[in-house]
């Protein structure tokens, strides 16, 4: 349970800051700090157990179908990172409290920071590959928010976007790689994956999986050639940089290397890819750290360089190298966080980070100078500090690597060159900023930062010294446990001490320090050399690529999506034609093996009428009402066809819908022009006729081919089980309300939503109402013809009776909720037609929206009800009852479901038609009014 606390407390912490206002900054910071502090205490309580070898784990099943579990673990590796994240995170919270200015929205900042911390903790504690990836993507997102925190600055926005694009794409690659691993191993469970190294290495999918995972790790850890996003991310507020680029974000990549080290490492591919990338990155970063002029950019490139160093160590396939890598992760986090904070202090107090303007700050801020000097010395690998220890281990490991075979000597040489550069840029950072004369052109007079702002730096500097002086006491325990988790076998015995005697690594360290000093002294030559190269701005290149992409997509949109429905239709139809035409060409003969039934004369007449009416609908379309009448003929014929081919339910539905559609279209036609102007060009008409003919031909051929081929239907199941399983004799209805009840539920929901959408669309719609028909005749003054009014009123009870009859019998005879609902709706619409909206509203004193919604609710509740009895959703129960006059009625829960269908259909149909009728608001001339 405590594992969950560690992850969830910071998440809770991301909500807490918003409780406090921006003005009460102390309160806000305290609230924020409380949660990670508790989480840190929880972690510390677990620490002795973990160091003793326990691995607390926790797992809930989340989406078993995807292999996704909410599984957490706290092994040594996780512990190291959790302590770093929480510890440095707390210091950052304190620092940010004093760093942020009054104008910055502090609660928002803390909320983002806590969200980021949560996702980072999730990564390091995840015990499931997919879960790990989820948190991984969360860090990309939350770091986007953090880097772009000063969203009014263009650089912040662009830097954030670049970071998101690069790490996000890497994240997708990582997902693909992890899925491949999951496929190879058969599970996403972390422990199983870590134990299956032999299986993974032997699988042919190992290389692609490795490449994809490394892509994810390298983009996150800013390895060459993806290093460019990290310096751009320096547009973030300094606390963010200090957190993201020391202990967290970029460490996620190297964490992943360490985490999957037991499963993936050991192959030649791993050795070359990882260690050489790390080596190149180390040199590249170190070189640019020496060249750059902005304090934070210098630190950013040094971070790139150190990450390269760690990556190289993980790549060396040596156990001690892994230990060294982990040790350097710890050390780098401490000194780099501290250095970023000193850079922030300088920026905060002097208003600039340009190394050319800053000089001699030690006069103004001696404490900060001392702290910066200590931590920078650690970065340079100065003895008695922690950086020295891990760097020396690194140098020792490079001496033993088999990499490059006969050229293996190259590795330690290059590593030493990297160390020389590291010493040089560390020296430059301290000397150019804090010493070397007096500051020039500063906007304000610098002074020492407040104590709370220096406190986090002080803490980290002390940690640097403690680890540097007493490594065996302070770091051995946690490093050994962490290494245990990152290695397949127990970690090698670790002898951390300052003095190993005179040996080659010590010599290399000495060369590095002396060489670094010399490079620093001679740096002007290097700068001159560097100026010969044209400067390449990675941001400009990236933004240029983004602009080109945007232009390309804009071009695509403009070309394809020009706002013309006709053109879209054209493309849709042409592609449909192409696809179905192609499949038709694939069959040998159009006619299948089934015997053709003989057509009787009645059928021929019916088909002829249908075809004629269909064509007439198209040809007479410019006279809209006539076209509509022709459409009703087609509808009538279609329902007769359904009746003819043994589908009474369909015939009923088709009839009812056809009438409702005609009423609907006429209601709409009142507000639209009565005739369509002649505007299509002759060539357009020819094109459309050809297209339509082609379409019709394909549909007809497809239909014929289908009809003459034997059918393999699952319907026999429904026919067999309809009575026994669904308790109804009308199989169509049983399928609707029972077998496929879930589909029907979806469909009535759609109907309900359509009705509500229409209600909303009609809201405050004002349309011109013609006062005369298309021939200029004024409308008849007789609003409600008396004969119609009185007769229709007497028809209503009959119609309602019919609909109840159809509804009740629906399960066993043609009928059911859909049809009964439509009949009821039509009967009520007749009242509207005969008596008008006002009359009907007075007598039907209910709203239709609640009816439609309650229909969906009843249907859903019926489904949910079966849960109460321990059955799956929408299981039906039934029994038979005999009701006089109506006959044997089956009362099933399906009936209740059908009632829901009925109510939805009534409600939705009336919602559509009655609301459309109501659009005519003003009173128009009428007989009644004239009399009055």
């Amino acid at each position: 349970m405590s594992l969950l606390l560690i992850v969830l407390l910071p998440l809770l912490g991301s909500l807490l800051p918003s409780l406090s206002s921006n003005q009460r900054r102390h309160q806000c910071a305290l609230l924020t700090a409380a949660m990670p502090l508790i989480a840190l205490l929880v972690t510390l309580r677990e620490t002795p157990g973990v160091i003793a070898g326990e691995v607390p784990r926790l797992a809930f099943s989340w989406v078993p179908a995807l292999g996704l579990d909410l599984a957490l673990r706290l092994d040594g590796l996780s512990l190291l990172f959790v302590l770093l994240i929480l510890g440095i995170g707390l210091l950052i919270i304190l620092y940010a409290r004093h760093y942020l200015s009054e104008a910055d929205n502090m609660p928002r900042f803390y909320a983002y920071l806590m969200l980021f911390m949560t996702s980072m903790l999730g990564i390091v504690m995840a015990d499931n590959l997919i879960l790990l990836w989820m948190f991984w993507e969360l860090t990309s997102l939350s770091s986007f928010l953090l880097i772009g925190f000063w969203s009014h600055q263009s650089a912040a926005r662009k830097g954030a976007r670049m970071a998101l694009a690069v790490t996000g794409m890497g994240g997708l690659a990582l997902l693909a790689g992890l899925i491949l691993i999951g496929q190879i191993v058969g599970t996403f469970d972390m422990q199983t994956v870590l134990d299956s190294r032999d299986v993974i290495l032997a699988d042919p999918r190992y290389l692609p999986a490795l490449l994809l995972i490394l892509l994810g790790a390298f983009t996150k850890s800013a390895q060459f050639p993806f290093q460019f996003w990290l310096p751009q991310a320096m547009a973030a507020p300094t606390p963010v940089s200090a957190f993201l680029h020391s202990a967290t974000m970029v460490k996620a990549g190297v964490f992943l290397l360490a985490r999957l080290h037991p499963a993936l490492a050991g192959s030649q591919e791993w050795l070359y890819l990882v260690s050489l990338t790390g080596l190149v990155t180390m040199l590249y970063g170190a070189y640019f750290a020496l060249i750059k002029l902005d304090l934070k950019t210098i630190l950013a490139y040094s971070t790139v360089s150190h990450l390269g160093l760690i990556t190289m160590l993980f790549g060396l396939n040596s156990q001690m190298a892994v230990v060294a890598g982990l040790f350097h992760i710890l050390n780098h986090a401490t000194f780099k966080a501290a250095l970023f904070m000193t850079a922030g202090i300088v920026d905060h107090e002097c208003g600039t980070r340009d190394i050319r303007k800053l000089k001699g700050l030690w006069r103004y801020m001696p404490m900060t100078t001392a702290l910066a000097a200590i931590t920078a010395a650690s970065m340079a690998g100065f003895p008695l500090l922690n950086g020295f220890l891990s760097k020396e281990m690194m140098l020792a490991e490079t001496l033993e690597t088999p990499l490059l075979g006969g050229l293996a000597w190259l590795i330690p040489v290059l590593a030493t060159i990297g160390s020389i550069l590291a010493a040089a840029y560390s020296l430059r950072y301290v000397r150019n900023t804090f010493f070397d004369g007096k500051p020039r052109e500063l906007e304000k007079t610098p002074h020492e930062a407040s104590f709370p702002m220096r406190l986090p730096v002080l803490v980290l500097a002390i940690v640097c010294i403690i680890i540097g002086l007493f490594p065996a006491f302070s770091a051995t325990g946690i490093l050994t446990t962490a290494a245990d988790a990152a290695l397949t076998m127990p970690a090698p015995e670790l002898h951390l001490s300052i003095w190993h005697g005179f040996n080659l690594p010590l010599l290399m360290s000495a060369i590095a320090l002396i060489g670094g000093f010399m490079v620093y002294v001679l740096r002007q030559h290097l700068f001159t050399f560097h100026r010969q190269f044209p400067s390449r701005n990675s941001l400009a290149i990236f933004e240029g690529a983004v602009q080109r992409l945007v232009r390309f997509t804009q071009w695509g949109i403009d070309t394809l999506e020009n706002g013309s429905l006709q053109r879209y239709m054209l493309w849709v139809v042409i592609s449909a034609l192409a696809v179905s035409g192609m499949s038709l060409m694939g069959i040998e003969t159009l006619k299948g093996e089934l015997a053709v039934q003989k057509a009787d004369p009645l059928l021929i007449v019916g088909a002829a009428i249908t075809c004629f009416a269909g064509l007439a609908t198209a040809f007479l379309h410019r006279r809209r009402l006539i076209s509509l009448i022709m459409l009703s003929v087609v509808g009538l014929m279609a329902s007769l066809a359904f009746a003819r081919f043994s589908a009474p339910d369909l015939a009923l539905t088709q009839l009812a819908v056809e009438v409702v559609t005609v009423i609907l279209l006429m209601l709409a036609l009142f507000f639209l022009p009565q005739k369509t102007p002649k505007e299509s060009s002759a060539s357009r008409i020819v094109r459309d006729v050809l297209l339509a003919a082609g379409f019709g031909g394909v549909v007809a051929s497809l239909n014929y081919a289908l009809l003459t081929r034997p059918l393999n239907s699952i319907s026999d199941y429904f026919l067999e089980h309809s009575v026994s399983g669904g308790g109804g004799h009308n199989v169509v209805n049983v399928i609707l309300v029972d077998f496929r009840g879930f589909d029907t539920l979806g469909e009535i929901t759609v109907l309900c939503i359509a009705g509500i959408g229409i209600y909303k669309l009609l809201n405050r719609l004002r349309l011109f109402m013609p006062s005369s028909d298309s021939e200029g005749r004024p409308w008849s003054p007789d609003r409600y013809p008396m004969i119609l009014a009185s007769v229709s009123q007497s028809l209503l009870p009959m119609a309602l009776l019919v609909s109840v009859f159809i509804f009740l019998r629906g399960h066993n005879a043609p009928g059911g909720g859909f049809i009964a609902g439509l009949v009821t709706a039509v009967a009520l619409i007749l009242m509207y037609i005969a008596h008008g909206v006002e009359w009907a509203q007075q007598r039907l004193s209910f709203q239709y929206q609640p009816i439609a919604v309650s229909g969906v609710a009843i249907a859903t509740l019926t489904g949910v009800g079966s849960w109460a009895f321990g059955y799956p959703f929408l299981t039906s129960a039934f029994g038979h009852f005999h009701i006089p006059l109506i006959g044997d009625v089956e009362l099933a829960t399906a009936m209740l479901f059908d009632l829901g269908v009925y109510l939805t259909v009534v409600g939705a149909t009336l919602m559509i038609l009655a609301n459309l009728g109501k659009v005519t608001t003003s009173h128009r001339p009428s007989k009644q009014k004239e009399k009055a």
Partner: protein
Amino acid sequence: MIALYTLMEGVIAFFLIAGSIFALIGSLGLARMKDFYMRLHGPSKISTLGVGCVLLASIAYFSLLNGGPSLQELLITIFLFITAPVSAHLLSKSALHQKLPRDPRTRGNPEELQEDDDETTLEEAPQGSSKLP
């Protein structure tokens, strides 16, 4: 018993034939008559009668088949007989409203058709001559 069946069969057949002939005559009238007012007669009266006959045949047939009175078709018949006049009334009302031309030999001069100065018939009427509100 067999005689009764034969008799009933004859009755049913008679109703069927009679009904369909009525319906045909009604539709023939619809197709052949000279103006709308004449055409209205056929379907609204004779066709309804024809369908009524067929429904009677159906009642007789199913009564015979089920061995008892089967009156459900009566519902349709009642429905038809109530609604047919109403639709005919509405149709004639709209025809009068539209001032449809009538055969010159028609006797009587209904009020609705008196100011018959509109030269254009329905189908050739120009589009868009309605006045602005």
